[in-house]
């Protein structure tokens, strides 16, 4: 239990990310936050599951709960580009208890992880599990949704609450998917994503988090 200090719920980084002290972030040096993104409490970011260029199984064992112990991996990261496991853009919002898990693939008998890229203005709902290869900009993932391994959510994709996007699925832009397994059930209107309207609330959300906050 972290001490309930008067410091406040969120750590604010130089670029304006607001990260809950109660979030569980593993492998911080493999995670890139674009700035002004929010990670809520109990969200899990598995930054420790990064790609190993050589077939090194060391990444299979996540370090225990502490978030800064991954510096002691056996192989020093040769190329910082290759060891990014999660990158999140600006004004994205990771809700409570969401899990971001980099996708993996068995390639030539070697199980290796691939980076999970999340774009700008993305909303990830509560208790959702994201194992996608890429999540575009302005994507909305509802609560209790599951986005399977190596799925691709293009810009302005909309995943309804409780949807299970199967692994490898591509959700095209402007499409609404729902159900288990998810299928395309509709399209969102052209006005989606206009600032302040439906889909354009990312800055509003950012301002509302953590009290005060910087100017959007």
């Amino acid at each position, binding site marked *: 239990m972290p001490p309930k200090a008067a410091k406040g719920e969120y750590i604010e980084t130089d670029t304006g990310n607001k990260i809950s002290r109660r979030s569980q972030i593993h492998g911080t040096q493999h995670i890139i936050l674009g700035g002004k993104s929010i990670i809520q409490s109990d969200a899990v970011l598995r930054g420790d599951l990064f790609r190993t260029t050589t077939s090194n199984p060391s990444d299979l064992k996540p370090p225990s709960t502490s978030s800064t112990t991954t510096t002691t991996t056996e192989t020093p990261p040769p190329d910082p580009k290759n060891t990014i496991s999660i990158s999140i853009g600006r004004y994205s919002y990771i809700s409570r208890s969401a899990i971001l898990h980099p996708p993996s693939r068995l390639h030539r008998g070697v199980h290796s992880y691939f980076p999970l890229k999340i774009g700008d203005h993305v909303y990830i709902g509560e208790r959702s599990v994201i194992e996608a290869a890429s999540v575009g900009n302005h994507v909305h993932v509802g609560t209790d949704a599951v986005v399977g391994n190596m799925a691709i959510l293009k810009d302005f994709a909309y995943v309804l609450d409780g949807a299970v996007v199967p692994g490898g699925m*591509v959700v095209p832009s402007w499409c609404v998917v729902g159900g288990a397994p998810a299928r*395309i059930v509709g399209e969102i209107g052209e*006005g989606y994503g206009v600032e302040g309207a439906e889909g354009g609330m990312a800055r509003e959300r950012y301002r509302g988090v953590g009290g005060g906050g910087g100017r959007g």
Partner: protein
Amino acid sequence: MSRPFPYTYISCPCANTPVPDPSRKRRSRESPQKGSPEKPRPQPQIDDDEDEQTFDPRSPRSNFSLYPPEQLLYCEDCHQIKCPRCITEEIVCAYCPNCLFETPNSLVRSEGNRCARNCFNCPACTAPLSVTLLENAGGESGPWVLSCGYCMWTTLDVGIKFDKPTNIRAQLTKMTTDASPPPGPRTRQMSKTFSDLRSPLSMFSSIDDQFPPKDGAEQPTNTSAPRTRDARFAALKTFYKDQIATTTETGVDPGDFGTQFSSPNTLSRIMSIYTQSRRPLLGNTGKKTQTRPLVMREALTGPEGLSIPKPDSESTIIERMASDDCGWDGLASLEQRSFQSPDVRFVQDLLPLPSLLRSKRSKRCKSCKHILVKPEYKPQSTRFRIRLIALSYIPLTTLRPLVPPPTSTSTSTSTSTPQSQPTNLDALPPQKPIQLLLTLKNHMFDPVRITLATPSVTPGHVASKVTILCPQFDIGANSDVWDEALQSATAPDRLSRASPYEKVAEAGKVWDRGRNWTTVVLEVVPGALPGGAKLPKILRGDDSDDDSDDSDGSDDSNNKEAKGQVDWSGQGKDPGRRVQPDEDVLEIPVFVRMDWDSDNQIDQEGMGGKGIGGGESGAVKRELAYWMVLGVGRIST
């Protein structure tokens, strides 16, 4: 998609105009206001006359006119909001949602709207299939299968393997159309054994097997037709094309067929281009018809595509359904069968489905044919060449509860947590006034005057009282952002915004305003639910103050009330107690009338002499009016 509270829906006025309305374009130009508080909109005659002026968000008719604001477009020529019902769509391009490759329109027309590449959906669960190497074969050259990552279905379940990992669609089409009739029990358990799996290439060695015996009496022993359905369709198509060609090119009955098959020479030439591959197979039948009576005949033999089901085919299917090795799981569900050929009955007959294409569409105004939305041509692009969305014209409406000012007792805690008592919109206490902040944000480059109007009591059984404290106000123009930044140093209202908790809502005054937005206060007293409010009285004793017709109510409805339940079914006998589903949702109809001075030059010719500002000065007075519905919250019982 239901939305969380608070939400805004906007009613497109097209719901009240009959669909074929040729005069609509002209009328809209003459008077841009489709309805104003003074002049009520044309109401449908079938409506009852109890309330002509206000919009009832609960009437069944309004279901069809309420749209979330981001779905609405705006026609600059008609000066009207356009909902999906008042537009026409044209396909810009078709693309596969899975591989995002564009399919040309000509190919869509000829090949059907399915992906011609490697994209397939699982026939069992509709998840996308992936091409995977068969593991136990080893090596990189082994056979490939399509497998579903969601339900673990593979094409091995139906006995299909592929030789190449590319161009799967063509390989599958070859198998389904040109395949020799599968042996009878293929679709039983034997299909899973590897010995029964046929290579797609091997089936061409036995091309003679495709021709069943000429006389239709002895069909093959399996229950299905001599060929697959696709093959039969292809054969029939070829046969009738040949029939048309042979009967028309010899000139017999040109009067009959000449008009029926327009320009036969051209048609036959085109057909010969496309059907060259199949002609050698059926050449003999084509020659046969060139005998004396050159009249079109029907398909008579198996190779021509005729299939006569065996008399006991139905009972065979029934027997197989009843057998133990089929069971419930072996039967294809209705949903699965709806995407397959009609004679598929069993899970083991399911074929992978090529992905349905999607389309990007441009949208036009139905009445004036102007383009409202034109997306970029490329399937991957999310940009638009033209995008006239309503949100850039009508004010963007946001609603949020006004946090009550902290009382003097809780000043110490309220400094750290100002939202000490946040209003739970999902459970609004009835009969307790709440204040809401209604913010309208202008996206136009002209300042706008707004007049809001709302019925003082919301329609429906749950009557909530609504008061807009400042129904008339201005919104500034959507000017340069720097204007606000420069003004903010001096403007006093910025200071007032810094401490909103000390403000008290006053009638006739706007709550707050900014560069291009204005906030007013809405006071709402949520009404009591019929069952909930009367509940204490009922529990106390008799329902004496209820309506007299309550006595004829059935017993179980009274029992329900005694248990403190609201009759949600909407079927109760007592109209006072009847609550329709979602009747506890507090929805406020608000009439918005906006007028502004537009200096758009193009508008003048359209407006004619209607512009108040006069011809050459360029300022034209514009008006737009619509109903919107604010979904505030749900009233708790």
